[in-house]
């Protein structure tokens, strides 16, 4: 597996986080009544996921859950290094796909996986359980007096017309460090030529670059940012119901929208496959539920009303294209040219 070493080396080098051990952001153990334990490695924040784990343990009291939060690149590195986890959940579907393609996942099938539509799984190795749109979040205060943009073209016009108002007030992912940001950016660049023009305009405004959706949304609420571009819709929706949520507005631009699939896979090194399967089934059933029962939007898009429908990002080998080191280097170089114009 020399390729993985190269790829991992390259990816980690670019993200400048080449640490030998897993960089854990958060970790909590939920012991069960029996001795069985499943170790979950996930990108989703603990507070978002805790209600689901509690619900799962009500249905399966015997199974304990050890929940570890890490970034998607850390997760990818951990699995390719052979660290032992029973189930891996990640918002970076490209890295998840790469793991499956390169043989790090094991096949799993159940009644629940059989209910998934074809586009929501790949070879019984990778399973989607949410479909989450990328959205823009704006500060009501900072946008007062301006008509809210409906398309990227309108957003470009607004940013051009009020350069002083938006100077240092546009936030977006640093695609060099955020796997999800990179996925959103590459997919958008592929689908819409407006992406690069928008990036040029944002680049002139001395944008602020973030690792994560949550911090961007917090800065919009505090008024530090006027607009956060390409954040996770699910986080934004949840934040809106919390304190200060009324100070922000969620924009789903009509010309194009990315829908990311949050995916799960059972690594080949998993020790408690049965437990992992039960956990995966519960995830899929929660994702397929007609009524939204948890923090994440449902997998089936018909459940979301009033937004333009763009299909989810396809789960397939095309996801590997932008993970290719050469292609990645080329993309990042164009992106840096657009974003850093000092």
């Amino acid at each position, binding site marked *: 597996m020399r*390729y993985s070493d190269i790829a991992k080396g390259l990816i980690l080098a670019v993200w400048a986080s080449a640490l030998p051990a897993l960089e854990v952001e958060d970790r909590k153990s939920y012991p069960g009544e029996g001795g069985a334990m499943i170790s979950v490695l996930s990108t989703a924040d603990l507070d978002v996921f805790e209600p689901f784990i509690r619900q799962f343990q009500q249905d399966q009291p015997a199974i304990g859950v050890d929940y570890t939060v890490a970034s998607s690149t850390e997760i990818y590195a951990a699995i390719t290094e052979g660290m032992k986890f029973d189930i891996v959940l990640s918002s970076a579907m490209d890295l998840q796909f790469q793991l*499956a393609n390169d043989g790090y996942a094991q096949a799993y099938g159940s009644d629940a996986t059989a209910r998934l539509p074809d586009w929501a799984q790949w070879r019984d190795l990778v399973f989607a359980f949410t479909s989450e749109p990328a959205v823009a979040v704006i500060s009501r205060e900072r946008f007062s007096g301006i008509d809210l943009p409906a398309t990227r073209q309108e957003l470009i016009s607004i940013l051009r017309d009020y350069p002083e108002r938006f100077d240092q007030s546009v936030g977006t992912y640093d695609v060099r460090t955020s796997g999800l940001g990179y996925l959103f950016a590459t997919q958008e660049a592929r689908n819409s030529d407006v992406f690069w023009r928008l990036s040029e305009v944002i680049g002139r405004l001395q944008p602020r670059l973030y690792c994560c959706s949550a911090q961007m949304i917090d800065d919009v609420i505090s008024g530090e940012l006027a607009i956060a571009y390409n954040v996770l819709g699910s986080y934004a929706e949840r934040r809106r119901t919390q304190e200060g949520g009324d100070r922000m507005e969620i924009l789903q631009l009509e010309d194009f929208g990315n829908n990311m699939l949050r995916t799960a896979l059972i690594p080949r090194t998993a020790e408690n496959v049965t437990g992992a399967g039960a956990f995966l089934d519960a995830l899929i059933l929660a994702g397929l539920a007609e009524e939204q029962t948890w923090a994440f939007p449902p997998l089936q898009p018909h459940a979301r009303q009033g937004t333009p429908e763009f299909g989810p990002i396809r789960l*397939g*080998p*095309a996801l590997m294209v932008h993970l*290719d080191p*050469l292609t990645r280097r080329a993309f990042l170089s164009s992106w840096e040219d657009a974003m850093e114009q000092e």
Partner: protein
Amino acid sequence: MNPTGSIRRRMTISLALVAALLSLLSWSMVASFARQAAERTQDNILAASATIIAEAIRSEGGEVRLELPYAAFAMLGAVSEDRVFYQIETAGEILTGYEDLTTGSIAPAAGEVRFETTEYLDVPLRMVRMTRTVLAGEEAVPVTVSLAQTRNGIGTIAGDLSETAAALSVAFFVLAVALTGFVAQLSLRPLNELAQAVARRGPTDLRPVRRQAPSELTPLIGSLNRFMERLAGSLRRSEEFIAEAAHRVRTPLATVRAQAEVALHGAQSHDDKQRLRQMIRAIDESSRSAGQLLDHATVAYRIEDLSRDTINLAELAASVAAALEPTAGLKDIEIRLETSDVATLGDKVLLESALRNVLDNAIKYSPDETQISLTVDQQGDMACLRICDQGPGLAGQSTTDLTKRFARGATVTDVVGSGLGLTIASEVLQAHGGGIELADNPKGQGACAILTLPKA
């Protein structure tokens, strides 16, 4: 007779075996074609993807640059859920991709497209490799694109098609077996028809078989006909022998009887007379039996070639009754005729013989000083002759038992008889399309013989 298997089953089984073999052959051929077609499709898609990638290679500032085209990989993902591996190599240096994917394989020359079936990460792969020359600065650099895919998609397609082909083959086989059964039945029909035709024949019908039959059956029919001819000949000879024997016995018996009569007239002592009378009676019985044997032979002989004359049954009855009047007179038996004019078609000699035997029987088994009625009338299409006596009756025995050759009733142990009389009558009437039935006399004691014949 134990049959040694059935031709039909043998035919069906061998044809079914042939059909099974053909079905299996066609299934394996279709399955192999399906696999080849699926493999070729995968090769084409791999080649197309690799071409798109190769076309995207360019040089910038003397360096080989590549952005993997999204379409090339999207295309691979659109066709099947197969794992994808790739490698871009330039002059011995791995530019990007899976480094040890092509270990042990020499890069193809520029312009060449090569397909390989290989293994990577313990999975079988189909790989396409192609080389393109790119001008980097002033140097022409060969760049090799290798693109590989697992073969699950092919397996699925080939498996699906193979399953369909298998289902079709099974259907074909079932149809073939059904048709086989039909064909076997059709082929054997002439044989069955021949068997039925022979089985339908009456017990004395030994005419040769004259049927249209397939050429394969001609030898069988020929042998059958020759066999029946021999059988008929042998039967005829034995009847002739019996007739000859009976004839030869009867003539000397008549002489002996005449001499006995003379002796009786001349006898003085009561004992001698008694002895002679017994002798005469025994001679009479022998003579009658010989007569019946002769009758029977005549019947057997004449039935073979039955003549069809119009016969008035009333006249026939009257003449037979008149001929037997002396015999009846010996026992003081009165024969009462009640006839109406009914005609039938047939052989007069045979019908006379039949009626005479029945009437003779009635006289023989009737006690002295009784009456026998002989009625001729008609019932529907049939002419009916009814002979009723006042003898001991049938005691529950059936017509079939009593009309067998040499069978004698249970109630006649004290009367001498050969048992041939009713047999003769029955054979004659059957040959004429009629029959004989015996029943207890509905008017009281005795039995009735009812002879039926088709009316003219």
